[in-house]
């Protein structure tokens, strides 16, 4: 992975400021919600491991589902993904941190500890979004 160099980490689509991925509604850059954007931030990752870490869980899941499909047939990953989708919907109000207990139990990550449990724990975050604004955003009223 290291030998391919930084060029291989350029994101697939060349984003132009204002088009994606900072685009909000109307396709315009959403400064209010996502802050200022710069081409440098969009094109290159700020750390060599950023892309690999961002997609780590997704890639693991993809690999596991593929193996499961090859062994047990299509129904197995289909059923599991349906359960994940259901468990992911069990959330508290948008401005409160959710425990995601059902999701963790399904994933099997309830008996393992990683950096995401120690560093930057959302339960201990000093900032909280404004409750009214966040619920309005979630409901699509904003």
């Amino acid at each position, binding site marked *: 992975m290291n030998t391919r160099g930084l060029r291989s980490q350029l994101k697939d689509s060349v984003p132009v400021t204002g088009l994606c991925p900072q685009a909000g509604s109307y396709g315009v850059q959403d400064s209010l919600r996502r802050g200022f954007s710069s081409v440098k931030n969009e094109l290159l990752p700020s*750390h060599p491991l950023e892309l*690999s870490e961002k997609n780590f869980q997704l890639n693991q899941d993809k690999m596991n589902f593929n193996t499961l499909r090859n062994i047990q047939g299509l129904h197995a990953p289909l059923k599991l993904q349906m359960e994940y989708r259901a468990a992911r919907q069990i959330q508290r109000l948008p401005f409160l941190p959710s425990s995601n207990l059902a999701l963790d139990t399904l994933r099997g990550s309830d008996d393992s*500890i990683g950096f*995401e449990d120690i560093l930057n724990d959302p339960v201990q975050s000093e900032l909280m979004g404004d409750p009214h604004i966040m619920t309005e955003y979630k409901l699509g009223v904003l």
Partner: protein
Amino acid sequence: KCPLVVSRTFWGKNIKCVCFYRNALLEADINKLGFSSPAARKTGTTICGVVYKDGVVLGADTRATEGMVVADKNCSKIHYISPNIYCCGAGTAADTEMTTQIISSNLELHSLSTGRLPRVTTANRMLKQMLFRYQGYIGAALVLGGVDCNGPHLYSIYPHGSTDKLPYVTMGSGSLAAMAVFEDRYRPNMEEEEAKRLVRDAIAAGIFNDLGSGSNIDLCVITKGKVDYLRPHDMANKKGVRTGSYRYKHGTTGVLTKAVTPLNLEVVEESVQTMDTS
């Protein structure tokens, strides 16, 4: 009131990468001013392990360096992983500390879930998968040893995630000195005293021949059902005792005259400010 919705960019689950921007900016600014940014505290180290007849002996020196300065004269490099597994760590001190703690927690949860004593190979696999995931950015070189249901095992784990299962291993900046001693005197199925002497001599070779290692020698003897954590096993570098004192005795300087002037201070104003201790 400005309705600003705070949205966070995550990579991974909760890890942000804003710190890298800040560090890169700081680095550039500091270099412009002519200073160099602080170096991470490393444990330029000698750690080693040997498998003997009944178990495993792990050894480590106790010096932690920060560049050319000794940061900790007596740090503990043999970390607990589980009651029957211990791990010596070389490389960046914080990395070895946090990595071994995370793996220790995971192994504890795993052993509670299986209901069995954890195996050394489980710890090895967890460590190597985590270190490979971070592609060597976690600078932890480890010597993992323990006794489980299959007997004594010893592994060496490199920062990029490769591991070796061997009867005797050394890691760290003093590894060559220690390995020289091992290559000369190791033989299979040693007795406990002989194994302890061998590890002590290997670490001493690292301490006296490598600048990054020093101070005392810690040993950890792991057998089936028993762990002997000998800290310090041998104080190879004791600080000397001062033979004389340069302090002057009372009365060395003769007093010629003495004049006492009392200062009359009167209380002008007194105010009490209560602290908010809520």
